[in-house]
């Protein structure tokens, strides 16, 4: 398993699509900060309006949107493309079971997605801190009555957990479709519109209301709220974990049954 993880890590580092995605996220974050800063009113030479916390909260919204875009793209280029290139044939015959092969692939894909998902919040948090300290923002700000550091740690932790959950869904799509073009297309549509679909279903059928309330797609937005009660905490912790378990098992069963062409 360590050998497989080492090979997957090497592939991730060499994957041009992944480097491009990370670079784009970094550029988007800087652009976001710049536009946010420049769009605030200027009074007597000082821009007022945003605090560092406000910028950070907004960056979380941007981050979840970007994640929905790059999940499918990376799943297509990192997982499905191996079917087309034929390299999966060789991986499968390496002397490890299909379960281990899938888990190593999913593990490193999730790790890549998690790293990418931290770029925007970390850049915004760091830049927000520097900008507020140098007087470019109207201060650090307060996330409700929660200490800023605790809020930062909590949201970063949830970002990691939800990124891993959504990565398990994207990996499942990639393995099921086994074609990078289809994976990118289907995953984009899925992640961009699953909220609306579940919402529409929830309005018509009561059961989907519960599904929607517990889906990581809806809960991801909730994690940015300043105040979470005990129930919200548990839901935000266990719903993505359940998604990881369910989609990992689904992915393993599909991968085990699949003939590698």
């Amino acid at each position: 398993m360590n050998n497989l993880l080492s090979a997957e890590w090497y592939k991730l580092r060499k994957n041009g699509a992944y480097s491009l995605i990370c670079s784009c996220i970094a550029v988007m974050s800087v652009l976001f900060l710049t536009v946010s800063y420049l769009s605030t009113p200027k009074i007597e030479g000082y821009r007022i309006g945003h605090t560092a916390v406000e910028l950070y909260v907004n960056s979380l919204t941007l981050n979840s949107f970007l994640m929905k875009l790059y999940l499918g793209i990376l799943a297509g280029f990192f997982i499905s493309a191996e079917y087309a290139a034929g390299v999966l044939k060789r991986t499968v015959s390496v002397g490890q079971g299909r379960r281990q092969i899938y888990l190593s692939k999913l593990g490193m894909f999730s790790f890549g997605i998690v790293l990418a998902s931290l770029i925007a919040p970390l850049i915004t948090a760091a830049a927000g801190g520097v900008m507020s300290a140098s007087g470019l923002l109207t201060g650090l700000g307060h996330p409700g009555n929660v200490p800023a550091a605790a809020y930062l740690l909590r949201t970063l932790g949830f970002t990691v957990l939800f990124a891993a959950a959504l990565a398990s869904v994207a990996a499942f799509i990639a393995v099921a479709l086994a074609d990078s073009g289809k994976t990118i297309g289907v995953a984009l549509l899925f992640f961009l519109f699953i909220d609306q679909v579940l919402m529409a279903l929830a309005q018509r059928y009561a059961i989907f209301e519960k599904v929607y309330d517990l889906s990581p797609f809806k809960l991801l937005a909730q994690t940015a709220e300043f105040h979470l009660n005990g129930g919200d905490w548990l839901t935000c912790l266990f719903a993505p974990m359940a998604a990881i378990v369910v989609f990992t098992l689904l992915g393993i069963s599909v991968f085990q049954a699949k003939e590698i062409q």
Partner: protein
Amino acid sequence: MDKMDEPEFVLRTKGLTKRYKEQTALRDVDLSIRRGSIYGFIGQNGAGKSTLMKIVAGLASPTSGTVELFGKSGEEDVVRARARIGMTIESPALFPYMTAYENMEVRRRQKGIRDRTAIDRTLAIVGLQDAGRKLAREFSLGMKQRLDLAIALLGEPELLILDEPTNGLDPMSVVEMRDLLRRLNGESGMTVLISSHILSELHLLATHYGIIHRGRLLEQLTAQELGDKCRQHLHIKVDDPVRAAEVIARELGTTDFEAPEDGSIRLFRYAEEPIRVSSVLAAAGLGIERFNPTGESLESYFVRRIGGAAADE
């Protein structure tokens, strides 16, 4: 495990059958590949060669039947035993955005090979020592094939599975590939399972053959046996084959003949002197029913064998 304790056969299948929705790709295949052999797998397109190789490599599951690799037949054991095989199946399997060296590095890590110099050594074996830093997508088809082979060779596998490895290669590269496989087989005792459409190529390389047609393994034979079957000889049918054998031995001074149960004699010497042989037999008062010089190439043997199988169906 000591070499002496290694099983005689590196690969054996028993009753291997693979069915797709409306098609049976393999039917009850019992194949055996002896350690140290070069096994030429012959069959038309769609005969089932690639399907069998895919099942052995773990890319597809059989509908029924078993695969035994290096003497191991349990499901988990077979999975582990696959670490001892190298393979190239169908088109070259490469990461186009990586260099040749990086493609090798992925495999080195997958197999847990600690010695990084193994990459350069293996690239040198296939003649790509100067192309390690070049992107795989910039390679010609022949170079891709060679890199694919280098990846398969990394870690010195005991069984090398090659599916049509000379497809798209120029004649010089075909010769180089043949020499390389022969060297690997001779020096390290690597067993090779190779399929090819170019039967004359296989004929120069293989020590054993398996002929597959429409999913059925029609025949397995050694190069010696095939040579005997294809050897130039006089096919003689007489009214008294026992006496004819005595006459040939006495008058022509040779025992280089076979007397199959069908009552005929296959005389391997004097194939170039049919008149002398017929005269001797006639002088001994034997009635000659059939007398014709014969012998065939691997191609014609294969065509005849497949033709016979088709007629039986």
